[in-house]
């Protein structure tokens, strides 16, 4: 037989063997391995333990108790986070801002430090970074361990199991509910948490839509604006309820949009990505408390905090520089605000807010302080603080200043929506890039919410004005 004949025979045999013989061969190998393993292995009787799991599962995933239990547990987690974070946040603010900042300023004045130390480093970089740490660290340090404990116990996969139906209908994976919930703490952590989704398409969807979960850096903005502007519409007794409803409403809009965008993406841009589903419901086990706290602090909190600090440093410098570099006695910030004002007006915001959102890309936490600082800078009512120095006021003072800056109810509504729908912070963008390894998907995740934010606020503003609202 010569080579040609051999090849010919091989080709003929190949036709005869039929299609999918690779699959069949592999399946037989797997099956034989399983049979051999079954024969060689004896399993200790684990029945009783298993029965307890089933009983618990029947309650946790039941039609009647499943969802109320879930809502109750997560409300509890959020309540503990918000309440618990208050005190450490205040301590950190006291140490860094009320004691540390004047102390450092004193030293620099005494030794007569040059502007780039006194202004750029202290007023700019130090203040912005200290701000981010004191607002960001405590909630993360509480939320992540709590969340990880629920995960370790085995409850979170059951949540994904309960919610999968809704996510399946929008072309996503049930576990996206978990990365979304993680996103309520921090979007960067939520993007990392999307690793638990092993199907490539659904994982990308979860990463791209994570920004629609209001993160820890945006909750304070929502709550503050809702309290000052929305709550004020109702009689004092109902003010709290109304502002809370407004915040919950924005959150729900975020959840709805994340499902809607998932639906759209899975049918268009992500159609060709490989998609599989499987969800393991591991046995319940007592959570390993100390280990969990340690790993969630190291893996989640500290890594994200570190990234946030890295990005907050240049942001602080930029904020200080644009407020202090002047051309013919007008600061750079004022020029940019002037240019952006027409665009801001079109979407019911103003130049100050847009500038704040640009310089505060590194951290949503400093949006409100930046807006306040810029408002003072522009109105020239140079309060207690100098240009480029972030500060915070009490509720009344903030509202007074914002009203003086030309804010209306429309501005408040729009900023709540824009805070939900804008680009993710730079930490998150960087994390998305690290996780997907793709510039294209990073760009989609960045600009899609921004475009949606512009569209929605534009629509609301113009309709508002059309039907006679002021603003």
């Amino acid at each position: 037989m010569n080579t040609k004949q051999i090849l010919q025979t091989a080709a003929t045999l190949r036709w005869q063997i039929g299609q999918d013989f690779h699959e069949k061969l592999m399946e037989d190998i797997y099956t034989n391995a399983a049979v051999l393993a079954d024969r060689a292995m004896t399993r200790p009787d684990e029945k009783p333990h298993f029965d307890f799991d089933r009983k618990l599962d029947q309650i946790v995933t039941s039609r009647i108790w499943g969802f109320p239990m879930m809502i109750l547990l997560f409300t509890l987690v959020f309540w503990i986070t918000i309440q618990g974070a208050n005190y450490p946040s205040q301590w950190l603010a006291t140490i860094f801002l009320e004691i540390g900042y004047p102390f450092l300023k004193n030293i620099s004045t005494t030794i007569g430090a040059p502007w780039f130390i006194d202004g750029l480093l202290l007023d700019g970089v130090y203040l912005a970074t200290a701000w981010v740490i004191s607002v960001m660290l405590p909630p993360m340090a509480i939320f992540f361990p709590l969340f990880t404990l629920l995960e370790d116990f085995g409850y979170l996969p059951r949540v994904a199991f309960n919610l999968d139906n809704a996510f399946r209908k929008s072309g996503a994976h049930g576990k996206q509910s978990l990365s979304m919930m993680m996103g309520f703490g921090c979007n960067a952590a939520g993007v990392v948490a999307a690793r638990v989704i092993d199907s490539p398409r659904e994982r990308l969807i979860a990463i791209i839509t994570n920004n629609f979960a209001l993160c820890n850096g945006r909750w304070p903005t929502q709550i503050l604006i809702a309290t000052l502007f929305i709550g004020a519409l109702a009689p004092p007794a109902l003010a709290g309820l109304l502002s809370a409803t407004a915040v919950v409403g924005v959150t729900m809009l975020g959840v709805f949009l994340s499902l809607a965008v998932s639906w759209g993406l899975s049918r268009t841009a992500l159609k060709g990505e490989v998609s599989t589903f499987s969800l393991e419901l591991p046995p319940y086990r007592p959570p390993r408390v100390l280990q969990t706290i340690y790993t969630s602090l190291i893996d989640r909190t500290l890594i994200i905090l570190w990234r946030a600090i890295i990005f907050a440093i240049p942001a602080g410098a930029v904020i200080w520089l644009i407020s202090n570099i002047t051309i013919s006695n007008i600061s750079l910030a004022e020029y940019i605000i002037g240019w952006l004002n027409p665009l801001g007006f079109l979407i019911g915001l103003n130049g100050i807010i847009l500038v704040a959102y640009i310089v505060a890309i590194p951290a949503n936490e400093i949006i409100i302080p930046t807006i306040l600082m810029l408002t003072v800078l522009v109105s020239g009512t140079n309060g207690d603080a100098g240009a480029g120095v972030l500060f915070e006021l009490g509720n009344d003072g903030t509202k007074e200043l914002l009203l003086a800056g030309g804010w209306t109810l429309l501005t408040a509504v729009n900023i709540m929506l824009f805070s939900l729908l804008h680009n993710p912070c730079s930490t998150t963008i960087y994390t998305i890039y690290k996780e997907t390894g793709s510039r294209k998907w990073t760009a989609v995740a960045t600009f899609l919410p921004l475009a949606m934010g512009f569209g929605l606020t534009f629509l609301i503003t113009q309709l508002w004005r059309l039907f006679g609202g002021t603003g």
Partner: protein
Amino acid sequence: MIDPLTALLIAAGLTGVIITIFLPEQGLYPRWREGRRMTKRVQSEDALKFIHKREMERRGSTVESVAGVLHKRMDKTAVLLTIMQKDGLLTIENNQLHLTNKGRESALHIIRAHRLWERYLADKTGYTEADWHGRAELREHEMSTAELDALAAKLGNPTHDPHGDPIPRADGEVMIIAGRPLPATTCDTPARIIHLEDEPPIVYAQLIAEGLHPGMNIRMVESTNERVRFWSNGAEHLLAPIVANNITVQPIPNLDDIKPDETNYRLLSNLEIGESGVVAGIAPSCRGAERRRFMDLGILRGTTITAEMSSPGGDPTAYEIRGALIALRENQAKQIRIQSPEQATQQRATRWIAHSQGI
């Protein structure tokens, strides 16, 4: 400042413009791209493919029929075909078109590209059945022989595309499918689906919806002019004859060739909560990443699976598989074929006897 109504109208206008330009398929930009794609080369390749197909069906092709397939005016088609004749791809005699050897070679290259690409889409991407054909139609004109060989090697030199059509070999040899349309099958004779025609898409969509796939066994129950009724994939199917005509089947000559678990099974999705079943196999339509995932989870012939609980929405359902609790969605559970534990024990016994007797 700008009047809100004007602003809204301008925005609506802009949105409208963007939609008209970028709307998939109907938008100006996709159409412009489609127009650019339809170059002379692509058109002549499409013509070659069509003439080859008619030759395989032992039917002739005319200038009119080619014009119809290319959606092109008669005179322009005639010009195109004349150029192709000059290039030595075909001959025109009495309005009948015949491929030359060179023409046939080039037609086979396109068909090979088309079918290999469909195989690729089916095995390696998340596109669904309905998307395969259209995407392959675009891609088939863009691949060189070297690229095709590389793709074939990457896919493990597949012999058939996902519809059951044979993929021409690199040397141009192609197997001819010898089967007959499903309605012509006699009742109660077991047969195997060897091909599903993917054109027109609307009929193909119906076949997909029925969950049919090449490699499945069928048993005809009733075939009349009004309807075709048959068993396949653990359920009875009812199709209009015109739809059933797009299914090609081959009788299974030797009944012993059918393993019992290939015909007599239920689907995992039909398991009641608390009920157990033994895996008989995974449906041939389940391929690529999904199939591997199933095997990784230990869903293999002989594995016992118990339905444990369903989620509050009814889907997914959690199954106990080899001591682990795994949730699967309904459309996945439909891919897994099971038997009752008694059936499985019986079969294992028969196999064991056969094995020990050295059969």
